């Protein structure tokens, strides 16, 4: 394989009508796997469509909003997130091993996978590129405040920062702190405050004044 693995300068995008090497090689792979009967292109279409349109951070935001409004659910979520999220019913299938970790004024949680790219797909969708990149994977465990600064987030010096390295099949969801001034809000409205990054721990939930009315 070594001869296949050198110099890939242009595999990031589809450039006009010119087929990149990556496009050609991936297309060839799909042709082979289809001809051999291992994969069904229509199923591949459905998988792509699912990740493009159906699974995203809104799933997680609704979980967080429910936890903010319902103390019984919050407790259930912190005890067994897989079970609690499955019981909500808005995510069709929740795998085992989901763990929710709660931010408090004393502790801020941040999730990373230093070894690869483990991420709670069911509640957050596909991970953003930065989450899978060397800068984040290398620095999150050693200098999380520096990483937070890259996201324009600054926390008090004495706030404990707990970094969870996802080294097994456990997946972590951060339950961010509820912003002030949101008493009486519906879950739908609260969910608009819950950003993807706030559920990874590289951001905080938005304040009411930060969203378009």
């Amino acid at each position, binding site marked *: *394989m070594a001869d*296949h*693995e050198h110099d890939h300068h242009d*595999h*990031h*995008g*589809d450039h006009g009508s010119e087929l990149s090497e*990556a*496009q050609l090689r*991936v*297309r*060839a*792979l*799909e*042709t*082979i*796997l289809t*001809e*051999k*009967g*291992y*994969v*069904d292109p*229509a*199923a*591949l*279409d*459905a*998988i792509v469509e*699912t*990740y*493009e349109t159906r699974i995203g951070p809104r799933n997680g935001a609704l979980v967080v909003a429910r936890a903010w409004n319902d103390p019984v659910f919050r407790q259930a979520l912190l005890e067994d997130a897989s079970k609690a999220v499955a019981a909500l019913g808005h995510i069709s*299938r929740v*795998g085992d*091993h989901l763990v929710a970790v709660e931010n408090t004024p004393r502790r801020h949680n941040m999730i990373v996978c*230093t*070894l*690869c790219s483990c991420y709670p*797909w069911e509640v957050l969708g*596909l991970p*953003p590129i*930065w989450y*899978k*990149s060397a*800068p984040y994977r*290398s*620095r999150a*465990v*050693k200098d*999380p405040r520096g990483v937070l600064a890259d996201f324009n987030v600054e926390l008090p010096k004495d706030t*404990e*920062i*707990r*970094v969870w*390295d*996802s*080294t*097994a*099949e*456990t997946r972590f969801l951060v339950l961010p702190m509820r912003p002030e001034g949101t008493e009486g809000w519906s879950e739908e409205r609260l969910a608009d405050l819950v950003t993807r990054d706030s559920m990874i721990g590289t951001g905080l939930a938005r304040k009411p004044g930060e969203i378009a009315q």
Partner: protein
Amino acid sequence: MNGVHDMGGMDGFGKVRPEPNEPPFHATWEGRVLAMQRAMGYVGAWHIDDTRFAQETLPPQVYLAASYYWRWTLAMERNLLKRGYVTAEELAAGHALRPAKPVKEKLTRDVVQQGLARNSFFRPQQAPARFKPGDRVRTRNFHPQTHTRLPRYARDKLGVVELNHGCHAYPDSVAAGRGDDPQWLYTVVFDGREIWGPESDPALTVSIDAFEPYLEPA
């Protein structure tokens, strides 16, 4: 293995650069690669740790230079070749030339949603758990050439068991082709200074999920 994938604590990669309004895929082929990876997983072509190990064994300069889904592509080709699902001649020709290897039922469109559900990694316990939350442990100092999920920065370090996640398939065994060899899995937390030394942020704690063979009583 002590590969370049084991990045925790490395310096020099620069700032984290979030991309505003990032799309799920940056090119059509990226989605196809992800879909093929999932579909081949469904037919039982490999375990998740086989995929990880195939990426880890890419030459370091290739690993670092490749975009995310390109790395998946390279690893998938390696695994397909290694396990006899395709031949090098087929990859070169861009067409099937040999009969297929028998597989379980392939993933079809009507069962995609079930097919995308995450597998459970729980396995029956082989022995009682050796540790419980609150126990002090020391992670082992080992440097296998093979796949492991104990990061280098967390080896030979004193920590405290915080959670017991039950008994799971053991990646070190799975990726070596030796089966599930189920092991207890724990969240183990370390003080930042235990890992990074006295200059570390005193308010930092880091946890890993550690399989029982990674741990010794302390």
